[in-house]
């Protein structure tokens, strides 16, 4: 558990609320604009890559809970576990060196997207009946019109949109980290891993 304590130094603790606010500000803008992505995990991925898997998981978890419990978009709260998984995977991928170039970030994003679609589908299907009021419902409708039942339709929708969304997010995070001064990156446990 010593690595756990190291992940949560003061600078990380200050970064996490900033990351959560980024998630919500960008994610909500995209939601209102009804664009076919989410882009609600950029902060989560950033923390995961810089500070580590546990910090990333916590960022994702809290983002969704806060988003839901403060009344801004209650639909997000049940997906807290998915966001935690994304943060954790981002941290592990960074440790494995899979966020160190734009194309590696892209591939990592695609893989994480598929996993996140798989974890989201049951939640989406059970709590929401496959529908969340976002722009992606049209896709679910399409799959349902083919005769798919709720769970497969939710997963199919997710499998189409999530990998692209996460691939974009991971590449954006890679871009941002490359733009950060080394002095700042060095304050984080994994900050110097991507060069």
């Amino acid at each position, binding site marked *: 558990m010593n690595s756990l304590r190291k992940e*949560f130094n*003061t*600078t990380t*603790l*200050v*970064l*996490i*609320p*900033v990351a*959560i*606010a*980024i998630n*919500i*500000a*960008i994610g*909500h*803008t995209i939601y209102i*604009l009804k*664009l*076919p992505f989410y*882009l609600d995990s*950029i*902060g989560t991925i*950033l923390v995961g890559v810089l500070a580590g898997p546990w910090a990333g998981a916590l960022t994702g978890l*809290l*983002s969704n809970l*806060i988003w*839901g*419990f*403060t*009344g*801004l*978009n*209650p*639909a997000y*709260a*049940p997906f807290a576990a998915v966001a935690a998984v994304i943060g954790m995977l981002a941290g592990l991928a960074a440790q494995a060196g899979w966020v160190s170039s734009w194309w590696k970030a892209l591939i990592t994003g695609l893989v994480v997207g598929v996993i996140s679609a798989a974890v989201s589908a049951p939640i989406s299907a059970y*709590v*929401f*009946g*496959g*529908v*969340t*009021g976002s722009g992606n*419902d049209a896709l*679910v*409708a399409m799959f*349902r*019109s*083919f*005769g798919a039942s*709720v769970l497969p339709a939710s997963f199919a929708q997710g499998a189409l949109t999530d990998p692209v969304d996460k691939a*974009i997010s991971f590449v*954006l995070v890679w*871009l*941002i980290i490359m*733009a*950060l001064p080394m002095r*700042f990156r060095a*304050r984080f446990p994994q900050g110097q891993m991507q060069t």
Partner: protein
Amino acid sequence: MSEQFSIFQSRPSRLHALHPVTKLVLTFCLLAAALLLPGLWTNYLLFALAILPLATLGQVTGPLLRAVWPTVLPFAISVFLIQGIIYPHGTPLFSLGPLTLKREGLLLAISGTGRILMVVSNFILFALITRPDTLMLSLVQRGVPGGLAYIVVASIQLVPRFRARAAAILDAQHARGLETTGSLRRRLSAIVPLVVPLILSSLVDVEERALAIEARAFNHPGPKTSLIEITEAGWERPARWLLLLTVPVSLGLRLWLG
């Protein structure tokens, strides 16, 4: 509490005066009931018999309905269309031209909307009657790590500023002719100039803010005290335990009747 992110509304109500943990337990039990209790119309009953009276007690009925309606209505329409009409299988009930409403889909739509109605209104009620900082303080007093409380409350303070900045950047991009409508490719390329500056500018301050809280003894060892005092009525503790009993009851009813 103007300009805050949480929709908390301060009112001199008996509901607001409850201890934050009581409100948390109440929300949790209602959530469990909403997700577990069987029955097509159960969630609508819960909304009418639990949420609305509580909102009235808390003098927040207006804000509650105003916040719930725009979230639930689009969902209800979507689920009605997708489950009730677009899904091709099921017993037809009613036809209008090429569109057929099926019985199974209609039932799914009704129960789905009921569940969403309860989940959304439950969280919104909680947000309306709970101050985030006293909630976190009461949790810290019960052993939750101070770092976690810091993260939650700091996030709640930051979100409105970040949303304003995102809106400002979006406006500036529009003024420079950036399109956020139109082809997918165009919308995609609109994202980078929106996202990257927002994030980079907010990361600049992180180091100094960490220095600042260190300078205010944030990591000082030993027990912390609090300026704010949270009150708790004597009957609240046993009441919380009683409330929690409803959870196994909900579960039992589901297993037995579900």
